[in-house]
Structures are given as C-alpha cells and as structure tokens.
C-alpha cells in the first residue's frame, strides 16, 4: 500500500504542476541579474544566496496540493481504513514530494548558476547544499500543507509558517556549513512526519 501511495503521489506530482516550481526557480534566478546588475563579480558572490531564496519560494508553490485534495476527497480517511498510520502516509507523501521536486531543482540549478555567473566549484558546493537541504524542505512543506489543509487562504498562511522554519536550512545551506545543514535537515525530516500525522488526525471531522 505504501509503495502504491508513493507511486501515485509521484505520478500526480508530475501530471500536475511539477514543472511550475522549477520554472519559478529559474525565473527568480533570471530576475536577479536585472535587479542587481550585470557585474559578474557581484553576481557570483550573491549567486548561491539567490539560488537558495529561489529554491525556498519554489518549494512553497505546490504546498496547497500536497495534502488538501486528499483530505477533501476522503483519500486520507480511506488510507486510515486500509490500516495505514498517518505517520506512514506523511513519510510516503514527503518522499513522493521530494522525488517530484528535488531532482528537477538540482537539474535546474545548473542553468540558474549560469545566469548568476557562478563558477564550477561554487555550483558544485550549492548543488551539494541543495541536495542536503531539499529533503528537509520537502518534509517541512508536507507538514505545513497538513497543518493548513482545509483552512481558507491556506496558501498564504503556509508561506508564513514555512519560510521562518526554513531559515536554519537557508543559513547553513548558503554558508556551506554542511554538517550543521545535515543536522537541521535530519531534524526536520525526522520530526515533520509526526507533525503531519497529528495534523491529519486533527483535521478529521
């Protein structure tokens, strides 16, 4: 059941708007040279930070369709009926969300780095930081999606919840402090399924 759920969510991720966050990510990266100016030295200095901000905002885009459609349609109730713990559902959804978002983002970081005049070694460092950080970001996105599921204007509320919680990832990711970033990402990945599970249970009426 859990494997089928992961496959289903990945399929829905790609069938839906999987490309949208990626285009958004590229768009934000493309806007930075216009806002900052074409000076390659300045761009390559702020580039990694811009990539992180672009990644954070792109991660926000799919939040509304991660949990709410399944809650509204009774899928979450049926998964419970089939004996799946809410925390297992949360892990499956997080994994599926990362799969339909993480690899594409890592791929899109290559052209984005060219737009920001990043050289090879700083691209490699940023890619590694994104690889470490995106699982934490995906866990956070699913937890926030579950907490805000069914609320009016959930999208804006999700932004207010997610972005401050992602600040540690941003700080350590942009500073290439890999071990601290691993710690934060692990903490988020380990804690978020319990938050998500509790939120799914609390949303039942």
């Amino acid at each position: 059941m859990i494997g089928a759920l992961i496959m289903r969510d990945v399929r829905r991720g790609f069938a839906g708007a999987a490309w949208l966050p990626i285009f958004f990510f590229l768009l934000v990266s493309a806007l930075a040279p216009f806002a900052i100016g074409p000076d390659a030295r300045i761009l390559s200095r702020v580039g990694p930070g811009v990539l992180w901000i672009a990644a954070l905002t792109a991660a926000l885009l799919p939040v509304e369709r991660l949990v709410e459609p399944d809650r509204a349609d009774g899928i979450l109730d049926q998964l419970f009926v089939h004996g799946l713990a809410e925390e297992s559902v949360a892990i499956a959804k997080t994994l599926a969300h990362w799969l339909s978002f993480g690899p594409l983002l890592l791929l899109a970081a290559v052209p984005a780095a060219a737009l920001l005049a990043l050289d090879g070694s700083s691209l490699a460092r940023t890619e590694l930081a994104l690889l470490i950080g995106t699982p934490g970001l995906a866990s956070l996105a699913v937890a926030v999606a579950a907490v805000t599921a069914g609320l009016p204007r959930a999208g804006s509320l999700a932004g207010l919840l997610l972005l401050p919680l992602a600040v540690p990832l941003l700080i350590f990711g942009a500073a290439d402090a890999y071990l601290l970033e691993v710690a934060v990402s692990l903490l988020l990945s380990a804690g978020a399924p319990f938050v998500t599970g509790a939120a799914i249970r609390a949303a039942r009426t």
Partner: protein
Amino acid sequence: MTSLLRFEQVTLRRGGRLLFEDLDLALHPGEALHVTGPNGSGKSSLIRLAAGLLEAERGRVERSAFALADDRLALDRELPLARALGFWGGQVAAAMDALGIHHLSDVPVRLLSSGQAKRAALARVAATGAALWLLDEPLNALDADGAERVGRIVADHLARGGALLAASHQLLPGTAGTLELAR
C-alpha cells in the same frame, strides 16, 4: 459467536451537542443494521465512529476489518475508473460487474455522473472483501437498477457471513434491524 462490530455504552457529543448516549450495539456475521433518523441526528457520525474516524466521548467501539463508503469518492479523478479502483486493490473487476459499471472501466472518474460515482464508491467497498461494510447513504443518487444491484451485493455479502451498518433515509432491501436516532 464473535461480533464484527460492537459498541459498548458509547456516548458521542459533537459541537457541544449530545448525539447519543450509552449506545450498545453488536453486529454478528450475517447481520445488517439500518440507521435512520432526521437530518443532523448523527447517522453519519455513528458511521464515522464505527470506522474509528471519530473518537467516542465515553465507551468502547470494537471492530473487525472493514470497508467504508461515505459521501466522498476517494478515487483519483484524473484516472480511468478501473485504475482508480485498482489503487485500493481487491476484486475490482467482479465488483464493477456486480454494480453494472464495467463498461465505464476506461472513463476518467471526473466524468462520471453522481449515480455512477456512487456505484464506483460501492464497488470500492465490495472489492475489498472486508467482513464489515459501513455505508453512509448508499442509495443516494442511485436509480432503480442501481438500488436493486446494491440490494443484491448486500444480500450476497450477508450470505457469506459479512455484516453491514448502513445509514440511510431509504430502506435498504434485505436489511433487518433498524436503529432510529432521535434529533
């Protein structure tokens, strides 16, 4: 004989309102219970309580493996019906045959009429082979043929030693016991 569903002294309060108090019921293999009552009397809540989706304020609810159909379809709307039902597993083809929706196998779920969607939800339950069926308004939106088919699968289910708890305004064909909830 072991019961498939048992309520012991169950009290349920929702939104500060007492829906029922100290309710006892037991469903054994082959038994069906029909829950009636006016709108807002707690029929759906009773079903969700039986499913474990609501917590009782007091009392105990025990159940065996079960399947649930309520007013939400729980099928992926973009998929063809047979694939959407296949996600939940079980004897999908036989269940679709029994409910007369086999010809809709390749039709996307979002294009189904409300009666066809109801049949699909019931096919999801019938396919599981679970011993206990919890059905909330199983006859809503169904035509005469649909109601007759539901009566037939319910009769088969009971004959195989299954049990049924149904909340409905219309009487399900073949169900014996009735529990009326007061407002």
